[in-house]
């Protein structure tokens, strides 16, 4: 059927209109198409450039935006911004021993040397006296250390626990005289105490380390040894830690061997 179909198709095309200037029209349209494509490419390039600029602006403004001012920036003279952290709230209670507590500075190293510690916030003080609670590494109480200063009379002498009318013979060292009054006979009430008197002005210091009462022989041991208590009592820094007019008054600790009647 191929030959007849070709001939039939030729007959169909007999009414074909003339071509005319179709060739020029084609070339003009080609030029127009090229210009349109060029404009499209330029427009696409402009849009792309705009998108790049916009993205750059967004990224730059995002990355370089100042952070929320949680810290106060303080400009320095060198042009460098120094950051000052906000004031921290002290986690220690108001009754925590102050760093300026000269008595504590003498006692604490001795306590820690025995693998014990001063209980944070336990320090108490009054006119002429200080008190510190001691605990072991497990937090169990190991009694107290109490220090007091007394303004004794000229005729005062070192007491004897067994006889109020007798005077004890003190030991002497570096302008001081002192007597140790240790009593560890009762396991439930073990005490190490030293009373020292400065010869120059008669100021007297009493230091007592008492173990935890009724807690057994082990926990009943005082936080300081007798020698350490003596060391504290004969330390000039402890004498100087109290004001000149201080004297153990209200709230004064109850010493095992009282300094005054």
């Amino acid at each position: 059927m191929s030959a007849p179909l070709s001939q039939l198709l030729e007959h169909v095309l007999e009414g074909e209109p003339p071509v005319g200037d179709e060739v020029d029209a084609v070339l003009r349209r080609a030029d127009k198409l090229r210009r349109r494509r060029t404009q499209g490419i330029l427009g696409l390039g402009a849009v792309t450039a705009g998108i790049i600029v916009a993205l750059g602006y967004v990224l730059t403004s995002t990355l370089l935006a100042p952070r929320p001012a949680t810290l106060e920036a303080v400009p320095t003279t060198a042009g460098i911004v120094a950051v000052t952290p906000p004031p921290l709230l002290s986690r220690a209670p108001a009754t925590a021993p102050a760093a300026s507590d000269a008595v504590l500075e003498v006692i604490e190293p001795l306590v820690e040397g025995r693998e014990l510690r001063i209980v944070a916030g336990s320090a108490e003080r009054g006119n002429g006296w200080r008190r510190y609670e001691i605990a072991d590494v497990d937090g169990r109480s190991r009694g107290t250390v109490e220090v007091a200063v007394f303004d004794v009379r000229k005729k005062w002498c070192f007491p004897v626990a067994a006889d109020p009318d007798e005077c004890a013979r003190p030991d002497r060292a570096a302008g001081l005289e002192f007597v140790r009054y240790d009593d560890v006979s009762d396991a439930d009430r073990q005490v190490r105490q030293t009373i020292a008197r400065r010869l120059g002005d008669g100021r007297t210091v009493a230091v007592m380390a008492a173990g935890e009462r009724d807690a057994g022989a082990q926990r009943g041991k005082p936080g300081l040894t007798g020698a350490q208590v003596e060391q504290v009592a004969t330390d000039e820094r402890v004498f100087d830690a109290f004001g000149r007019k201080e004297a153990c008054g209200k709230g004064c600790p109850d010493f095992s061997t009282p300094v005054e009647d």
Partner: protein
Amino acid sequence: MSGDKKSVESDDVALREFVASRLPQLRRTAFLMCGDWQMAAELTRETLARLVADSRRGAVADPDVFAWSELMEACRRRNRRREHVFVASAGAAGVEAESILLLDALHKLTPRCRAVLVLRYWDGFDVDATGAMLDLADEQVSAYERAGLAALEKLLSESEAAMAG
């Protein structure tokens, strides 16, 4: 037809010659595909303009394959419906009844069958070139050709019988 491919890509004169030589044939092909001389002229103009523009920027490998495949695609886009009304040219003195019957039968075929028959029996392309223009495998071209011829023969027989009756 593809012997002057390089000159078409690089030379405006050669492009004009190519357009002048292919335009009538392409317009007839378009008419057989769409049945409207005015639309055929428009589709041909559009196809050749794209060919010239793409040839100038070196984007055309085979101008004949490019031209006919573009034209067939343009016809497919313009004339999606199979139903068709034949439109004679403005200055045509008269169209024979057989031609109208043939055009009517041709446009009752599927677009693919019609395109294969036009390219093979009117433009004279071989199976390989027809497949390249329509993006079909050779076997598909042959299958569409057989189906198209059978359908066209049946349609024409029915039309002749109707006219005789």
